[in-house]
């Protein structure tokens, strides 16, 4: 049973436009969420996180929004750049087990 879901396997966006990557979760006990970015042949790298006490966290071109009532978070990248082309994983912290529960990822392609 997938507790963290990324329903869009891929997304294509033109350079300069906004990229919106979505993530849904089922466990209401999750209270900390992270986004990781992965380039081919490299391990995932931490991008941005958000605690459930907030509904928004911004870092440069990257903003994560959290809607607790909908159990939904999204990552906004604006403006999108070709170097943003990668696979983006959403993850939730399970405090009971100290593990990260990852989504299946969304492949973002930013074209000129």
């Amino acid at each position, binding site marked *: 049973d997938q507790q963290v879901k*990324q329903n869009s396997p891929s997304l294509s966006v033109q350079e300069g436009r906004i990229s919106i990557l979505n993530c849904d979760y089922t466990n209401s006990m999750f209270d*900390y969420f*992270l986004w*990781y970015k992965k380039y081919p*042949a*490299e*391990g*995932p*790298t*931490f991008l941005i*996180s958000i605690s459930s006490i907030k509904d928004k966290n911004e870092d440069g071109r990257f903003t994560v929004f959290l809607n607790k009532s909908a159990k939904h978070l999204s990552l906004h990248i604006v403006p999108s750049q070709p170097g943003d082309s990668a696979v983006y*994983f959403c993850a939730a*912290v*399970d*405090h009971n*087990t*100290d*593990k*990260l*529960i*990852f*989504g*299946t*990822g969304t492949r973002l392609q930013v074209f000129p």
Partner: protein
Amino acid sequence: GAGVSQSPSNKVTEKGKDVELRCDPISGHTALYWYRQSLGQGLEFLIYFQGNSAPDKSGLPSDRFSAERTGGSVSTLTIQRTQQEDSAVYLCASSLAAYEQYFGPGTRLTVT
């Protein structure tokens, strides 16, 4: 500073052979995780080491998989009698907590 390193970066093995994958975590990180990513899939948790506690092996797919962490540092993931479905990228991560895990570049295992 040195990040998480993994070796080998690529491994091709024949079905039925045993393989060992190595992970060198970031110095001082008490937690170490193994994941695998099969083609088109998300990050699948395999095993988690935290300090001197007994490892959480709940993600290991079969008894052909085992892992050790010697001296609280280097970890080895062993797959015995490899099968073609074991082909995947095996990722190691270390952290001081579940938050912000730092990943290695992964080992791409191909079982022929």
